[in-house]
Structures are given as structure tokens and as C-alpha cells.
């Protein structure tokens, strides 16, 4: 009886001590999120996202979701210096600079709200940014308003005009070979390597705009691209450039019809993807042995690799 009482008492006492000790952990952590001082909206289709600059917690605003899902990496100031940032590479995006890799707009311009919405929906492969597709559309729209509120650029500048992408041309062998010539002429291989393995002569020296080492995409892995997976996404990637990274925009130097040729050739580099372009290309190589000059420094610059 006595023993039982002692056991019960000590168990109760332990529970009380644990509960009191752990209370601060379960209470709301006060993270002072400080976005811009003005209100911000985002428009995705017929959904309007909100962020407010008055420091109050509005139930329908992005700050709630941001506090719950984003602050750990992107930080209370939105500058990419969250608690977890030091453990992550590539580093979380700094929203205060408003420089974004995946855009439909020309290099140096702000992305559209839809671009940012697509980005958080898709997430970024080979990074720590997950896909936020499970969040309701309204929450994602609110988060976009929040992302925009962190940079003063959104208050003075408008988003760029999305580039126009013409209808895709047939992925013929001519198109693929022309794309191959462009890969040589535009010197894509200097970073991405002669076989697209991300091992070009400049690859080891690349840094992003914050000075952190960054690797060029290795096509042979066949991994999804950061900015989407379709041929149109691939077209958009090299025509808009990935701002903040070493990948430049080729919009001024590649014609739209040539750009599709390059897309078709790039698919042949993604060996494990086994795209139809690869089969077409391999058939050509088998029937024309020794006719293709290797891509790379052997060819005189600017003459193409064919």
C-alpha cells in the first residue's frame, strides 16, 4: 500500500516535472517575422494571396504559413539565413534580393506570380526545397505574397513579360544535329562538358552569386531539371537563364527555331532518360560512323562541331 502510493506519487511528480519543463517547447515560439512594411498581394488565376505589413497576425495571410513551413530555412527576415540554413546546400533562397532561378521572364526581371507559385508547388530537385503541392492553393498564393513582401523591388518594379515560346518543331535528325552544332558554338560544353556530364573545363570554378560553389547540371544522370521537366521548360531554362547562378540567358543569341534544335539535342545527352531523340541520334551515329567530330576544344572555336 505504502509502496504503491510512493510509486503513484513519484510517477505523478515526474509527469508534472516533465510537463512544466517541456511547456516552453510546446508553447508558440515567438519568431518575429519582419517583411516589408507595406501590404502585398499575389494573383494566381482567380486566387488572390495576401501578406500584410502591419505586424498583426491576419488569419488569411501568408505570415501564418510562412512561420510554420518556411522560416526554418529562409529565416524571419527572408534573407535565407534561417536556423537550418547553415546545414543546407544549396543555400536557401534570399528573398530580399528578389533574384530567382526559375522564371518565364527575361534575365534581370522579376518573375511572375505564377512562376513563383509553380516553383513552390514543384519544389526543387537536388535541393532541400520540397514540393508544397499538398498545401491548399490559397495558402500557396499567400506564401507568394509573403515572398514578394520581403524585397523592396516588388513595390517599384513590375514582373517581366514572359518570353514567347513558339510551337515545338519536329525532333528530326537535322534538328538534333543542328542543336549539337549550337552546343559547340554557344560553348555550353565549357561548363556542362563535351558529353553533358557537367565536367567541362570551367565546371570546377563555378560559384553562385553569393560565392558558394555550384555544379553545372549533369545531363547523363537524366535527373529532372530544377525548373520543370517538359521540353518547354528546357527551352525556357536556357532562354531566360537561371539568375543568381552562372547559367546565362541565350535569348539574344539563339533564334527561337534554333532553340528547339538545342532542346532536341540536349535530350540525347540524358542517356538514362531514353528519350525518342536519343534513339534517333543513335540510329544516325550507327549508320554514319566517324562522321561526327567530337564536341570540345579540338574544334576551332566558333566553327561548330559537325
Amino acid at each position, binding site marked *: 500500500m505504502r509502496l504503491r502510493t510512493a510509486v503513484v506519487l513519484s510517477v505523478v511528480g515526474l509527469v508534472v516535472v516533465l510537463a512544466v519543463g517541456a511547456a516552453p517547447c510546446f508553447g508558440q515560439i515567438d519568431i518575429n517575422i519582419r517583411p516589408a512594411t507595406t501590404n502585398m498581394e499575389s494573383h494566381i488565376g482567380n486566387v488572390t494571396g495576401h501578406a500584410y505589413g502591419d505586424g498583426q497576425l491576419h488569419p488569411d495571410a501568408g505570415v501564418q504559413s510562412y512561420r510554420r513551413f518556411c522560416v526554418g530555412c529562409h529565416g524571419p527576415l527572408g534573407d535565407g539565413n534561417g536556423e537550418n540554413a547553415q546545414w543546407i546546400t544549396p543555400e536557401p533562397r534570399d528573398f530580399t*534580393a*528578389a*533574384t530567382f532561378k526559375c522564371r518565364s521572364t527575361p*534575365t*534581370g*526581371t*522579376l518573375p511572375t506570380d505564377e512562376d513563383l507559385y509553380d516553383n513552390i508547388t514543384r519544389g526543387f530537385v537536388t535541393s532541400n526545397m520540397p514540393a508544397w503541392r499538398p498545401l491548399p492553393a490559397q495558402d500557396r498564393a499567400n506564401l507568394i505574397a509573403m515572398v514578394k513582401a520581403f524585397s523592396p*523591388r516588388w513595390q517599384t*518594379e513590375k514582373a517581366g513579360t514572359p518570353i514567347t515560346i513558339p510551337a515545338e518543331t519536329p525532333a528530326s535528325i537535322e534538328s538534333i544535329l543542328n542543336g549539337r552544332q549550337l552546343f559547340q*558554338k*554557344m*560553348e555550353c560544353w*565549357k*561548363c556542362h562538358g563535351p558529353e553533358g556530364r557537367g565536367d567541362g*573545363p*570551367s565546371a570546377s*570554378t*563555378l560559384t553562385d*552569386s553569393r560565392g558558394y560553389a555550384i555544379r553545372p547540371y549533369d545531363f547523363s544522370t537524366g535527373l529532372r531539371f530544377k525548373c520543370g521537366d517538359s521540353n518547354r521548360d528546357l527551352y525556357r531554362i536556357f532562354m531566360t*537563364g*537561371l*539568375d*543568381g*547562378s*552562372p*547559367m*546565362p*540567358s*541565350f*535569348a*539574344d*543569341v539563339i533564334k527561337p527555331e534554333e532553340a528547339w534544335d538545342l532542346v532536341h539535342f540536349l535530350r540525347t545527352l540524358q542517356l538514362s532518360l531514353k528519350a525518342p531523340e536519343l534513339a534517333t541520334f543513335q540510329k544516325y551515329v550507327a549508320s554514319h560512323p566517324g562522321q561526327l567530330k567530337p564536341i570540345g*576544344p579540338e574544334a576551332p*572555336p*566558333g566553327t561548330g562541331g559537325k
Partner: protein
Amino acid sequence: MRTKYISVLAMVVLAGSALVVAATPPADSSIEGKITYTGTPPKMKPIDMAKEPVCAKQHNPPEDAQNVVTGAGNSLEYVVVYISAGDPGGAPPSQAVKYDQKGCMYIPHVLAMQAGQPLQVLNDDPVAHNIHPLPKSNPEWNKSQPPGTAPIDTKWDKPEFIEVKCNIHPWMHGYFAVLKTSHYAISDANGAFSLKGLPAGKYTVTAWQEKYGTQSQDVTIGAGETKQINFVFKVTPYLY
């Protein structure tokens, strides 16, 4: 009665002359000087362009890196000297400044311009470059410029010092000095600079070096006067 008339007349004359002065301030004063250093400057390493043989061939012996360029008599080259206060600025000129890429180097290493002034980037090399300015207040962009393509026409709206690099050739490194004022100079191989065509007045002159930061001096110049001011940068043998 008569004194009142005279004083009114005097006021009219004074106001009139003040208007004339305000309308056409004679811009015939100048500020000249020299940029020097004290201490031991870092030894710049020769640039290894082995990865781009076309460019390596153009530099025999190889060029040194240009972060700190020193000359005879402890002079410092590529220091931007400009009026940081006292000059209202004014509309930027419509004539473009040119930034050339030749032999896988930026020419000049530091290019100064007024905010809003047209800027043209040229590629005179037989290889492709990508021009990647890294601004903080202006929007960042990154464009490919293969040989034989048109110059890139652009401009910067906000004053700042912008680092420029080419990711394909990591040794390529330069600066755009985007300034509010139209009165600026870049120190030459002897460290000399000259700010000409200034109206008389009180100015703050600032000198900027990419590794050693800024220094400022207040100067008051009279009409037609040429004032000498010098800047001395304290240098260290190591760059941080």
C-alpha cells in the same frame, strides 16, 4: 524717399545678378591629385589562361591580376575618384560608355558611368563570354555573348559599385562604378586623376578602391581655381 528708391533699385540689381549667377555658374574649377599607398601591397599573381589557349596566346608574358595595380612612386591605378556630395547630379549623358572583352580580360578593368547612362558591352574575342554583373541594389542579370554577336546595350538606374565576372573564364573580373555625379575620374598608371569643369563650391570628394574601400575629403574651390588633393590608401600584403 530717394534712399528708398535707391535701396529698391539695389535690391533689383542684386536679385538680377543672383539670377544670372544661378543660371550660368561658371564651371571652370577643377580638382586634381594623386592616389598613392603606404604599406606593402599584395603581389598580384599572373593569370593562368591555359584553359583558353586563344586568349593565353595574346598575353606574353601573362598579365597579372588587377585587384591592386601599383605603379612607380607608390601610385595606385584603377581608383575611382568622384564627387559624392555637393554636385546635384543632373541628367545622364546619352552617349554610351563601352566595356570591352578582349584577350579574356575586361578593358578597362574599372569602368565609371553615371546612373542611367547607356552602357554597351562588346565581345572582341573569338570565344564566347557570359557577362554576369553582381549588383546589390540594381537587378542582377547574366547573358551569353558568343563571338560575332551584337553588343549588349543596357544601363544601371541606381548608383553602386558592381562587380562583373565571366563564369566561363573565372579570372575575368572587373567593376562598373555607377555614380550619381557626372564628375568622376579613374586614376591612371601614375595614380593621377583630375576632375574638371566644376562650378565653384564646397564638395566632398571620394576615392574608391575595390579592395581597400572608400576615403573622403571635403574641398572648397573658388571660381577658376585648381585645387590639389591627394588620397593615401593603407595597403596590406594580403587580400581579404
